[in-house]
């Protein structure tokens, strides 16, 4: 996923000189091609996320489209106020790119688990969350981001993610991307790298449920969900995030606020994983169902 992102970023920077990359001293073996090709538009902010985010906002306020790059938990909670006040409030074209969404860095422990980040980003009115399910979706959401300048939180896995989309696709904000056709009334919607888990679920394997990925969502797209949910009877959501303020919670708010008659099951990370250190796969086995 991160390599797909970097390929796309380099391609875009070749044709647009307003694109810059600021890293938070992370990205070894990923960012070097950009740094080598665009040394005037590449900056390592060092281990200083507050300045990285404030500076990215300042550059974006002069018309640039700025991408920051770090590991999930650092450029989110550490500089939450810079994201809220500088980037989101001023509606600036900063894309906060993170790797290690969810528990991709499982064995590194709680400091490296990005499991409350959707809750933070989802509360910001101008922010869109881009959480692609595979490398094909990374390229598709990047294509959207580059054409629609505003604040984004682009949450990637670590590496080696499977591809579930067969060819290049187009992604629109808030739209579901069909991955596997099953029942018309019963659906699974996954966001981020939980797409593999969603496809491996009993409901998906037995074709009881259709499986969709939703790689681009925000407060602004909540209304769009109403029209997409209109025929749905049963909904299962998948996310590698805690329940509070997450993706399942996004849908349960829409369902309850609009009195929709939908039975929802939210599959998300359990708070049991806090303080546990294990592989991503092992931690996912503790998923709340």
């Amino acid at each position: 996923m991160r390599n797909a992102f970097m390929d796309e970023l380099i391609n875009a920077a070749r044709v647009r000189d307003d694109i810059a990359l600021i890293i938070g001293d992370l990205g070894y073996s990923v960012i070097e091609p950009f740094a080598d090709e665009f040394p005037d538009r590449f900056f390592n902010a060092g281990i200083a996320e507050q300045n990285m985010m404030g500076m990215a906002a300042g550059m974006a306020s002069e018309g640039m489209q700025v991408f920051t790059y770090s590991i999930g938990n650092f450029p989110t909670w550490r500089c939450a106020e810079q994201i809220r006040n500088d980037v989101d409030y001023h509606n600036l074209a900063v894309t906060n790119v993170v790797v290690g969404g969810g528990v991709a860095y499982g064995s590194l422990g709680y400091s490296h688990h990005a499991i409350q980040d959707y809750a933070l980003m989802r509360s910001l009115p101008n922010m869109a969350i881009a959480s692609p399910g595979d490398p094909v979706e990374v390229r598709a959401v990047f294509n959207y981001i580059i054409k629609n300048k505003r604040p984004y939180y682009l949450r990637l896995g670590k590496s080696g993610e499977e591809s579930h989309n067969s060819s290049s696709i187009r992604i629109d904000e808030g739209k579901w991307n069909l991955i596997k056709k099953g029942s018309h009334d019963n659906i699974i919607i996954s966001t981020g790298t939980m797409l593999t888990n969603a496809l491996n679920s009993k409901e998906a394997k037995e074709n009881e449920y259709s499986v969709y990925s939703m790689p681009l969502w925000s407060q602004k797209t909540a209304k769009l969900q109403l029209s997409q949910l209109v025929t749905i009877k049963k909904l299962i959501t998948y996310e590698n995030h805690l329940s509070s303020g997450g993706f399942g919670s996004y849908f349960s708010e829409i369902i309850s606020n609009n009195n929709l008659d939908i039975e929802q099951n939210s599959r998300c990370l359990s708070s049991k994983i806090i303080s546990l250190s294990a592989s991503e796969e092992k931690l996912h086995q503790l998923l709340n169902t």
Partner: protein
Amino acid sequence: MRVLSESLAKNIRKTSLQMVSKAGASHIGSALSIADILAVLYSDIMEFDPANQSYKDRDRLILSKGHACVSLYAALHHVGMIPNEEILTYGQDFSNLMSHISHKAKGVEFSTGSLGHGLPFGLGKAMAAKVNGEKWRTFIIAGDGEMQEGSNWEALMFAAHHNVKNLTLIIDANNLQSLTTVDKTLAIEPLQQKIEAFGWECSDIDGHNHKQIREALSKLTPKPNCIIARTTKGKGVSYMENQVAWHYKCPTPEELKIALTEIENA
């Protein structure tokens, strides 16, 4: 036509007092502290065009100590950026002129209010100018107490490392913060030596002396430039000067009258 800085400073002080008094607002001490700095910036230093407020080559000013906003609103009013009818809305419900500096107001680049945001953001602007080969300058006004925020020191390091010399940080050093002096709260001195040690050029001046402010701001330095402007909180109004209480209090009509007379006769 540009106005003389001395005359502009007087008008900034008077309008700030009138705005705060009418609105029942606070932070007048902080606003009076930076009136001379703003007056010199808008009279003698900054490039701007009231008829074309977003023109590309203008200089950028970020007020990081956003609570001193009335002073900047007043300055922008007296140089023809904010019309009188908008100034009169200060303190009213849904006014664009919030009680912390707001980018919804004409001529304001960036909203602040939480401290420690202006320098990183202004640094980003200066970086953009550098990347794009543009000549305009970025000025940031921060408070001395505000320098306790770690984000400022992150930005100081970065600016020096990349030699962002189109960037000027002005520290309004009135040595007062929320409860007492900066020295007693969390000492930041020796500030000049610290900033120089971070790789900046740094001067220490009288922040109410227009000649000194003008010279310090006119200087083109080989490194990013910091000016520590030694100021008096509440400057120009005898009963407000150096009084923490005027971070919070709003002058009564009688107090306003005395303040305006003192400023007029100064």
